């Protein structure tokens, strides 16, 4: 690239700016920009960095609460968990790069979210991920699954952070746009959370970590455009990760953070040196001057444009206290990482970047950030879908349907995936993958954090508002089922092209539903990420607002899993069953019909039921607990049986409900518990005003349905565990 190439309308268009946006740029600059300056506006005003289509709606989320130490706007959010400690977490997408180059795309997604969390001064204690792939029949799917899973494992395993939970769905709407959402949870001292606001003109700006190369230039812009057939030619814009360097960077940063040295710190993620320096300056209302000749470079002949826009991985920007440069140099030298003094905090309010003694970039920071485009895009609400009555849905033999469902792509065991993730490193994983939520111990205390990711995209497509609420309440349920009190969420909003009113309608609906559920549950949003333009040739993904929830256990020894561990225990269903089959897995997999309104969601009812369940778990009244979601009651009991190696004898469906509605309906706010004290459970449920019903008892060896036969656990396991390895081999 030539630094001072003529800025033609084509060049502006290549940088993803509209005519109006370019006119605004000219107004701010009061002159024609250099190419490097144009590049900076381009990435800072990309959807990925500016949230220009979603910002007005994101503001409607509840983001405060008594436990919130840091809400959205920093590298990650933080909540108080007592004992002077904070849980720091965030979820982030790496969808477009993972489709183009699955291993590196997914790996660097993990790297980026790890840095967001340790930038805050937190040691990462767990990773999670939410993955969506296209139809298993699509020719690319197998390759993408293999690459993404290997990439996530390859990075997280090496860094030594356990990957403890996740979810994986398959649907043709993701054929051309897979979703790779990665979440990290860390622990920090509540009084030592590091932020990214520049302070103190004269303070030095340090660059630490890996050297800068030409990888990932314009990744943020790529992530803000629709895919076409040509997109795969964009492979050079995918960054390459080095988890070993990340591990060193993590240890070095945490070591430096223990000293009194850092004023501000920000990871160089999307838009690299540009966004990190601009955002630090903007947050502090100050300026930054950088000398690019001092940036550690991996390749020769790099221009200012390339250096500022590179998305090379494993790099951080620090502002240090006067005189602390020496401490930083010593620590980074120990970890054999570059540490370069590349600039200074100024009072100018401008980003001034020079190279070879020449100023190549001179941009006023405040307007670049504050005047970033903000769109209230037109939208149309998604059309309401009709309710489907169970009586109008084909009824199958329950065990035949169970066989089919347990071996279907969405419900089949994902062991093939989590076997490739080190989920045990650190020896603090109390609940491993495969349960309702992972539980990871807070070392040196009796406490633990529970964590989970959830979204049911088919509900969101059928009714965005209800689907948005459901994603939130399902995390609430999963955390409650392991005995945790849900504290806060992070969200990853994955949608199609927001310039289309029907897609914007999905975005608005989901956000409204999520916000409503969060308000009722006192479950604020503390961080998040938006990924739009997930479309290929005009085909959008299902709306997929993934929710990552974190909860707290005061005593990790009190948690229970989903496994049925011994025969002779009573099984009790908590919550009301109406046999809702609309938009259910049964409807899709058995009746071959993706239609109907999704089940109603009532956050207040979820709260009452979740509080009851949490009390039963913490009080030791139940031995196992599982929330009901995809596939309904019979799938839940089958999962409990396989997890613990003990079967069950279940009573017949109650009269007045169609059998398939009872066994496979997806009514919300329900759990199954196993207990030796059924009377105590029924009494507690009655006191809480939650319907409860004894549905059978645990029994060795097989799952038996009164009047409908039995299936051995061996057969069930072969079906459930078999699908994914067979598909991948």
């Amino acid at each position, binding site marked *: 690239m030539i630094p001072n190439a003529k800025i033609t309308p084509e060049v502006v268009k290549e940088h993803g700016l509209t005519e109006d946006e370019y006119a605004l740029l000219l107004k701010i600059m009061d002159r024609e920009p250099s190419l490097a300056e144009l590049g900076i506006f381009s990435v800072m005003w990309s959807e990925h960095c500016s949230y220009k289509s979603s910002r007005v709606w994101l503001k409607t989320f509840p983001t405060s609460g008594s436990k919130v130490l840091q809400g959205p706007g920093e590298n990650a959010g933080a909540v108080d968990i007592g004992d002077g400690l904070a849980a720091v977490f965030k979820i982030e997408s790496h969808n477009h790069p993972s489709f183009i180059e699955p291993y590196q795309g997914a790996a660097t997604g993990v790297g980026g979210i790890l840095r967001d969390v340790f930038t805050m001064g937190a040691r990462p204690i767990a990773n999670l991920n939410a993955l969506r792939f296209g139809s298993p029949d699509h020719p690319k799917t197998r390759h993408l699954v293999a690459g993404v899973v*290997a990439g996530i*494992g*390859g990075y997280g*395993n*090496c*860094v*030594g952070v356990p990957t403890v939970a996740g979810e994986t769905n398959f649907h043709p709407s993701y054929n051309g746009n897979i979703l790779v959402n990665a979440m990290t949870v860390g622990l920090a001292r509540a009084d030592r959370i590091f932020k990214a606001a520049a302070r103190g003109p004269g303070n030095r700006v340090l660059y630490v970590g890996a050297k800068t190369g030409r990888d990932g230039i314009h990744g943020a812009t790529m992530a803000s455009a629709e895919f076409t057939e040509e997109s795969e030619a964009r492979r050079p814009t995918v960054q390459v990760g*080095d*988890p*070993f*360097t990340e*591990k*060193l960077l993590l240890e070095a940063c945490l070591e430096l953070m223990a000293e009194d040295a850092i004023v501000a710190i920000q990871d160089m993620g999307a838009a690299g040196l540009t966004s990190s320096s601009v955002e630090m300056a903007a947050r502090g209302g100050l300026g930054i001057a950088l000398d690019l000749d001092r940036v550690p470079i991996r390749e020769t002949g790099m221009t200012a444009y390339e250096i500022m826009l590179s998305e090379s991985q494993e790099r951080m920007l620090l502002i240090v206290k006067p005189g602390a440069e020496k401490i930083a140099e010593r620590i980074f030298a120990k*970890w*054999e990482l570059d540490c370069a003094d590349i600039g200074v905090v100024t009072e100018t309010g401008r980003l001034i970047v020079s190279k070879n003694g020449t100023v190549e970039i001179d941009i006023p920071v405040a307007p670049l950030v504050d005047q970033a485009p903000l769109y209230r895009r037109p939208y149309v609400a998604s059309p309401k879908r009709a309710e489907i009555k169970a009586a109008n849905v084909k009824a199958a033999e329950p065990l035949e349907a169970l066989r089919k469902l347990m071996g279907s792509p969405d419900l089949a065991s994902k062991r093939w995936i*989590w*076997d*490739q*993730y*080190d*989920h*045990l*490193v*650190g*020896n*603090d*994983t*109390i609940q491993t993958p495969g349960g309702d939520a992972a539980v990871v*111990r807070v070392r040196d205390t009796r406490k633990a954090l529970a964590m989970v990711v959830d979204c049911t995209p088919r509900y969101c497509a059928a009714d965005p508002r209800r689907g948005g609420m459901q994603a939130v309440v399902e995390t609430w349920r999963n955390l409650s089922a392991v005995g945790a009190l849900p504290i806060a969420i992070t969200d990853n909003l994955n949608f199609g092209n927001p310039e289309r009113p029907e897609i914007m309608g999905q975005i608005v609906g989901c956000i409204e539903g999520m916000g409503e559920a969060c308000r009722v549950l006192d479950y604020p949003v503390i961080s998040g990420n938006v990924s739009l333009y997930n479309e290929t040739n005009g085909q959008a993904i299902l709306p997929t607002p993934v929710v990552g929830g974190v909860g707290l256990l005061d005593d*990790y*020894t009190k948690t229970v899993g989903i496994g049925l561990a011994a025969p002779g225990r009573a099984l009790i269903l908590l919550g009301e069953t109406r046999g809702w089959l609309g938009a259910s897995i049964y409807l899709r997999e058995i009746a071959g019909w993706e239609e109907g309104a999704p089940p109603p969601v009532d956050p207040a009812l979820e709260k009452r039921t979740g509080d009851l369940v949490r009390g039963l778990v913490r009080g030791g009244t139940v031995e196992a607990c599982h929330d009901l979601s995809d596939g309904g009651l019979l799938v839940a009991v089958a999962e409990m049986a396989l997890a613990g190696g003990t079967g069950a004898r279940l009573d017949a469906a109650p009269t007045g409900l169609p059998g398939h509605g009872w066994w496979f309906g997806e009514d919300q706010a329900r759990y199954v518990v196993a207990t030796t004290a059924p009377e105590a459970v029924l009494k507690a449920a009655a006191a809480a005003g939650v319907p409860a019903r004894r549905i059978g008892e645990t029994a060795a060896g097989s799952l038996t349905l009164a009047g409908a036969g039995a299936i051995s656990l061996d057969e069930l396991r072969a079906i459930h565990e078999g699908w994914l390895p067979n598909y991948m081999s």
Partner: protein
Amino acid sequence: MRAAVVSFPGSNRERDIVMALERASGRKPVVVWHGDAEIPDCDLIVLPGGFSYGDYLRSGAMAAHSPAMKALKERAAKGVPVLGVCNGFQILTEAGLLPGALMRNATLKFVCRQVHLRVEESQSLFTNAYEKGQVIRVPVAHADGNYTADEGTLKRLEDRGLIAFRYVTPDGRAAPEANPNGSIRSIAGIFNESKTVLGLMPHPEDATDPNAGGMDGIGLFKSLVDALH
């Protein structure tokens, strides 16, 4: 028992093994940085799991040439016991302290899961708390755990009782379905000639807590405490 744990850039299970040693001995081990040419006077040296030097070149290959390893070799030659777990086992084979090599898993994939091991030899510093033939449940977490050696070496290992652990089914049978990485003869861990060095791929340190992974691994650390006081 005074233990020293050598930490390399990229080690990531040193905290796990430090805790396991502390649980068994009541004493916190010293952690030695790889660049240190000296290892303090101690009764046991431990090489922990992880990805030393990012596993670049070959797993364990670069760590085998670090200053701390030079010191470790000298100490091992004098009979100081050495335990290498996972990446530590890889380093010990690369450093020539144990025979054979650890190749990429037969599946070509990283594997993390609980496995069952049969204790093949209880007459050692490391395994005296177990019964010979006892089956224990501990996790593995590795990409390069596929043990191999030439026939002569394997025969020597078998003949002299130098195979410490084998992967087996829960009822104690060596079988392909119980072998997570394709290791020859289901070998999970081996001793050196004098049984003062043990290398194994599984993580007994992650099975030393009743709330996180169970207690089947504690015997290895108790054995050492018993033998070394």
